[in-house]
């Protein structure tokens, strides 16, 4: 879960980092008011999309009037398709140097890793690797002062900068650990006359740890449908194509999408019902997809912890309760596949054994449907193997 900049900064402040003086506002008038109080300001859209600066979502304003105008302009924007309703109005910092500082999780070393550089700012991704210190933290030890001293030495930080980082970095690490963060990134970490100030804040909290942080806000980046799917425990992403896809497992779902493309179709979505989905969850997934009015539905289940008979029962339930008026191609394999096939056969649906065949069938069905034909609906089962 990504946090908005102003929320991230509030957390940084709680962990004793300096942040710019500022106010969260929702109208141009409030922006002007804040600017009257703060002096020269920067007006920043509070949106989770990246590259706000390059897309016009950040502006400086020397006067309250200018702040009002810029706020009005920015509030009218959509940044990378995302609407937003809050602006952060902050004092304009006097910046002597821009540092880069981040804490994230490194899959390779399986531990928290600190990234630090004296060459922070907009172009950090272009800074050569040797100018960025990469320091994996032994999680049993935590971040110790000697590590900060060594990081500073490798960064080439001055004695004075090192003195500040010796206080700042342990606070950042505590935040990272206390709040189950996946990412804490400050870019730039601005060196100002009053010391290091977090001029930006990107904090991502591990979704899987949110249950132990009830005090944190809940922020959703998803579409309504994705949100609804998430509440059902389904991993769902809209893709805009013709064939609605249900599969179980992220890997095979991706492989199914790849194969849909391979055989000339376009997937409407990514929908992973996950491991061990029962009748209820599978039925919900199917209903969700039907709401999106696809040209065809492709069900690709290779059961391990998921049981094929549960999937079949879910299909039957949805068909009986709501009806299914789009063509469906089904592949079932693995745990209880015989039972599953029998159930679907009874419901008049032929089932494929191979993924390739089911995908080819779905692509064909969608094409027919697009061409106005109704052949291949669930009622009139296609010929499987």
């Amino acid at each position, binding site marked *: 879960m990504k946090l908005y900049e102003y929320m991230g900064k509030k957390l940084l402040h709680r962990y004793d980092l300096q942040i710019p003086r500022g106010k969260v506002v929702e109208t141009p008038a409030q922006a002007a008011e804040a600017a009257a109080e703060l002096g020269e300001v920067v007006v920043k859209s509070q949106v989770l999309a990246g590259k706000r600066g390059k897309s016009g979502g950040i502006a400086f304003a020397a006067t309250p009037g200018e702040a009002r105008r810029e706020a009005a302009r920015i509030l009218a924007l959509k940044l990378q398709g995302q609407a937003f309703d809050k602006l952060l109005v902050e004092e304009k910092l006097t910046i002597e140097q821009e540092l880069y500082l981040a804490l994230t999780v490194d899959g390779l070393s399986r*531990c928290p890793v600190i990234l630090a550089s004296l060459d922070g700012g907009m172009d*950090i*991704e272009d800074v050569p690797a040797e100018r960025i210190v990469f320091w994996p933290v032994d999680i049993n030890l935590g971040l110790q002062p000697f590590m900060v001293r060594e990081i500073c030495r490798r960064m080439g930080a001055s004695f004075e900068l090192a003195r500040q980082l010796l206080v700042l970095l342990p606070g950042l690490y505590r935040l990272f650990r206390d709040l189950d963060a*996946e990412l804490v990134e400050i870019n730039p970490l601005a060196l100002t006359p009053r010391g290091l100030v977090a001029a930006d804040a990107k904090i991502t909290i591990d979704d899987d740890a949110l249950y132990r942080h009830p005090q944190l806000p809940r922020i959703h980046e998803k579409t309504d449908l994705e949100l609804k799917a998430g509440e059902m425990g389904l991993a769902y992403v809209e893709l805009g194509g013709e064939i609605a896809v249900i599969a179980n*497992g992220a890997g095979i779902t*991706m*492989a199914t999408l790849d194969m849909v493309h391979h055989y000339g179709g376009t997937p409407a979505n990514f929908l992973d019902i996950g491991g061990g989905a029962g009748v209820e969850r599978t039925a919900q997934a199917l209903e969700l997809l039907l709401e999106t009015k696809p040209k065809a539905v492709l069900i690709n289940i290779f059961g*391990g912890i998921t049981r094929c008979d549960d999937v079949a029962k879910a299909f039957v339930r949805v068909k009986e309760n709501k009806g299914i008026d789009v063509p469906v191609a089904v592949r079932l*394999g693995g745990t209880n596949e015989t039972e599953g096939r029998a159930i679907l056969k009874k419901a008049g649906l032929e089932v494929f054994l191979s993924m390739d065949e089911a995908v080819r069938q779905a692509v064909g069905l969608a094409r027919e449907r697009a061409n106005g034909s109704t052949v291949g609906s669930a009622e009139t089962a296609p010929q499987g193997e």
Partner: protein
Amino acid sequence: MAIYIDENTRVLVQGITGNQGSFHTAQMIAYGTRVVGGVSPGKGGQVVEGVPVYDTVFAAMEAEPADAGILFTPAPYARDAAFEAIAAGLKLIALIPEHISLHDTMEICAYARRKGVVVVGPNTFGLVSSGRCKIGFMPNRYFVPGPVGVISRSGTLCYEIVGNLTNHGLGTSTVVGLGGDRVTGLNFIDVLQEFAGDPDTGAVVLVGEIGGSAEEEAARYIAASMNKPVVAYVAGKSAPPGKRMGHAGAIIERDRGTFAGKIGALREAGVKVAELPSQIPALLKAVL
């Protein structure tokens, strides 16, 4: 010879009294796995699928020592259960749950490394030494003995591929599910090293995904040290870009993590790359 586990491996099931735990205990026993005990706090004394249940792992180990554990506890309790398994002396643990928090996984991995314990997963289907021992929840019938070692980040996709192998008369030596999370105990290289020294394995199938840099690291290892043919499939060619960890993710991954980057690195390392899962059997037959 087998890697990690074999017919002598004594297995303990943590969370044995739950739905998943009891169902898959029966499945594992049916496969031939020596399940010697189960653990479920407060339910010591029960018997599930013929297996005695204990209140703690220590109690189970006192009654009959186990070598490996499989964990079916809900994600919020997985860290404690894994710690207990490691502290009580298990040498390998398969962490089945999805949604174990990243920080918990990091702590589990750190403790396991300290104690020399192999962690499979989390978010894995487990591992199987075909015909000898299954520690996981994959469907039994596809895992028949043969010369192919399989390492996979995804679960169902791995069954799909192993099922294809079986249909083409190709059995497996050992199949390892690394797990689908960002941090896992085993990575491709760990298992490739084991397969390199395993006389039962003639070739290896590597099943990857976009995201992370595990495939690129594996490619580097294969180019430098692998002594057996490797066939790979990577899922996600058409997937929407996943969430990136800010600039930090980009800095760490640099140009890695993309489909094209992974495929390129693997091809350069001499790996045969399949475009569809169904192509893997033919590629394997060409190298075996």
